[in-house]
């Protein structure tokens, strides 16, 4: 055999391997093929190909492996069990950039399924290797490495801590400043995942000066980047007052309100989440946001969107109103109450309804003015209905009861209280009767209205144990009216009169 023929044998084998690996990589893009591939034992075939001499076969094998691991949990576990990870991590340090991208892709695909798999990636030194990749020149490699780190950090705090300990955060902040859009997005998303777990991690991220860079990217035209930036800022500011103040000092606020009209709905949702996380700490921070017109923008946003997207906006209104009665009045003046009423009636999900009921309670419980504003929007019967409805979840019932009680204790607007006399259970009725007994002694027009609208009749029909607070309130109400009227409206009065008629002897 001549030399050429021998070399030809090798070339044929190489071509065959190349074709195999490329076909597997193509097949792995379809989910329906994965099962078949798994049953055919593709993992054990790919593993030696990853150590192949030819670089392009190595890269394609790594790519195929990554695609397989991405699709399902078991394959990712198989990757870990077959000890492929250590050799990937070792070769990450030495190979060219295409291999690094493919290897980072495999690590990401493994780490995304569960915390245990991420722990396995960390345990074989994956984090240090990925951090080394972050120092490369090629933006594609940086992006793949940052993405893998983001998926690892997503699961829980110790994993994020291991990433921070490996010194990834300054490198990620440098990645934020690169011109490539995809790299910026991924870096912002990874910073968001790291800082969401504990205040210390968020503080570490802030100490590297991330806030200033994130703040510069707020008005970028790219929607996905804005999503990640706002998500990162809200995860940082949710932990404590000082972090929220630092985010506010970066002067995001009047500009971020403009993003509330962005066409992308998740950008809007993330801006509202950021506002909520800032507002919940102190009244001063709430004032900053209210003063720059954020409240009006959020209320308009609530009108435009549906479903779960509304939740951060509703909670933001509740937090603002909870701080003081000034701010609650500001919410009312910005037309917040009709919008909340709409949300309450439109949304089918119970957790959103519960949040709305809580917000309404926070708005209405300060003074009679606030309670009147809530009552005129016809919210009291709705809250009562939510409380009484057997199909409401426990949380919803509890929140609507609390809201109703707190509003009722300040409500002096009698036309809104009257419908509640009819359907309410006794623990709510007690508060309603209490309010009537406070208002009626002083207002004669109200007394007249009370009689003519049938309220007095209803009060007489209420049965209460003598000595209970409800009975005392009923007595107090009865004492506001002359005895004949009270007797006239008491139940069974017509029978009493008829009895008197029977026993009457005309003189």
């Amino acid at each position, binding site marked *: 055999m001549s030399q050429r023929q021998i070399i030809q044998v090798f070339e044929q084998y190489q071509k065959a391997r190349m074709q195999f690996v490329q076909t597997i*990589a193509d097949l792995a*893009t379809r989910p329906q093929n994965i099962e078949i591939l798994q049953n055919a034992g593709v993992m054990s075939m790919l593993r030696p190909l990853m150590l192949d001499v030819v*670089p392009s076969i190595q890269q*394609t094998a790594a790519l195929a492996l990554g*695609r397989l691991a991405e699709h399902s949990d078991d394959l990712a576990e198989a990757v870990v069990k077959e000890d492929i990870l250590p050799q990937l991590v070792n070769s990450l340090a030495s190979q060219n950039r295409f291999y690094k991208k493919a290897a980072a892709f495999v690590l990401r695909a493994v780490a995304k399924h569960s915390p245990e798999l991420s722990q396995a990636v960390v345990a074989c030194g994956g984090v240090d290797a990925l951090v080394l990749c972050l120092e490369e020149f090629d933006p594609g490699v940086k992006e793949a490495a940052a993405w893998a780190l983001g998926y690892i950090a997503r699961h829980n705090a110790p994993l994020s801590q291991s990433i921070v300990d490996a010194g990834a955060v300054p490198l990620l902040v440098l990645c934020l400043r690169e011109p490539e859009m*995809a790299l910026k997005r991924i870096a912002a998303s990874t910073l968001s995942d790291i800082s969401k777990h504990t205040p210390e991690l968020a503080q570490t991220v802030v100490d590297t000066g991330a806030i200033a860079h994130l703040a510069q990217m707020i008005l970028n035209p790219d929607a996905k980047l804005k999503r990640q930036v706002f998500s990162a800022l809200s995860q940082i500011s949710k932990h404590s007052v000082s972090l929220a103040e630092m985010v506010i000092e970066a002067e995001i606020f009047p500009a971020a309100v403009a993003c509330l009209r962005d066409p992308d709905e998740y950008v809007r949702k993330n801006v509202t989440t950021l506002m909520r996380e800032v507002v919940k700490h102190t009244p001063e921070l709430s004032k900053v946001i209210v003063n720059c*017109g954020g409240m009006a923008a959020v209320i308009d946003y609530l009108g435009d969107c549906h479903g779960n997207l509304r939740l951060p906006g509703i909670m933001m209104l509740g937090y603002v109103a909870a701080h003081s009665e000034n701010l609650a009045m500001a919410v009312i003046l*910005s037309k917040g109450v009709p919008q909340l009423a709409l949300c309450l009636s439109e949304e089918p999900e119970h957790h959103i309804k519960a949040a709305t009921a809580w917000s309404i309670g926070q708005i209405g419980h300060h003074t009679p003015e606030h309670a009147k504003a809530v009552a005129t929007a016809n919210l009291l019967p709705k809250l009562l209905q939510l409380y009484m409805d057997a199909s409401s979840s426990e949380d919803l019932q509890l929140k609507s009861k609390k809201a109703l009680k707190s509003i009722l204790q300040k409500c002096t607007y009698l036309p809104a209280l009257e419908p509640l006399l009819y359907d309410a259970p006794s623990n709510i009725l007690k508060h309603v009767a209490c309010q009537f007994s406070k208002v009626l002694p002083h207002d004669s027009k109200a007394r007249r209205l009370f009689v003519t609208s049938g309220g007095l009749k209803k009060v007489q029909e209420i049965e209460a144990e003598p000595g209970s607070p409800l009975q005392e309130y009923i007595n107090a109400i009865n004492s506001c009216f002359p005895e004949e009227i009270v007797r006239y409206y008491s139940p069974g009065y017509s029978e009493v009169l008829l009895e008197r008629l029977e026993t009457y002897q005309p003189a």
Partner: protein
Amino acid sequence: MAEQLKIKSEAEEFQKEYFLRNSQAEENRQRENQAAIRIQSWFRACKVRAYLSHLHKKAIIIQKIWRGFTARARFRQMVKIQRRWRGFFLRKYIHNFYARKSYLEELSRKNELVRRELDELEELQRRERNCLEMIKEQTAKVYQAHRLHHLLSTKQCPGVFNSPFRPAPHETELLLRQVKYHAPTRLAPRGKACLLGMPDSAASFPSSLGSPWIKTTGTFCFSKPILPPIVSKKQQGLFREPGEVWEQRVHCPDLTLHLQTSYTHLEEAQNQLRQHKGTGSMFHHPSHSSNSFTQPA
């Protein structure tokens, strides 16, 4: 007698006793007087002291009650002052009604302003986007018109878009008439060999790593900027028109006797021409000679 003696002695004893007792009493009188005076004065002192202390106690009670009364009156005065001060201070600075009212009015104005501005901003952005979309559509149509240029209708034969049954030509037909034809350029294939270093959307990264990228391993090509086609009709260099040279080759230069040339001028001229053709023509007329022979007459 004895009784008399006894009585006398008793009388004498009695006198003596009487004298003794008197003298003793006289002696003690002073002392006892003094003692009595002392006791009496002490008693009187006690009485006076008791009276004084009684008076003191009563005086203290009266003073106590009086002082309490004045202090309470002062206290009430002070409370009045403090009450008024606190009310003033709170109403002016902390729960300032007018400040709150103006703040809320200011807030509603600001809300209106912000809502209006946001509406305008949204309108502006929407118009920009619509504009961009329309431009994109238009360029796509123009590109299609360039590709379909061959469907332009001629005088003899109406094109596909200019059916005789239509009242007026289709817009594509009009576009075709406006578009100027140029030779089709090969566009760089989009999703294929170019996205290694510049993934433009993160999600497309794994999909762009398909088998195509392996073929271009080693060539790190960005998407090439498409240069305009070369439209110069003039040929570079010292070329003459093709027809001229052909004529020259075919038709000899006219020979006249007016020329003052040597006898062997023709051979020399031909030799010179052969030498130039051998050496210089490589540099000056590389394709020109082949062109001149391949041009049809």
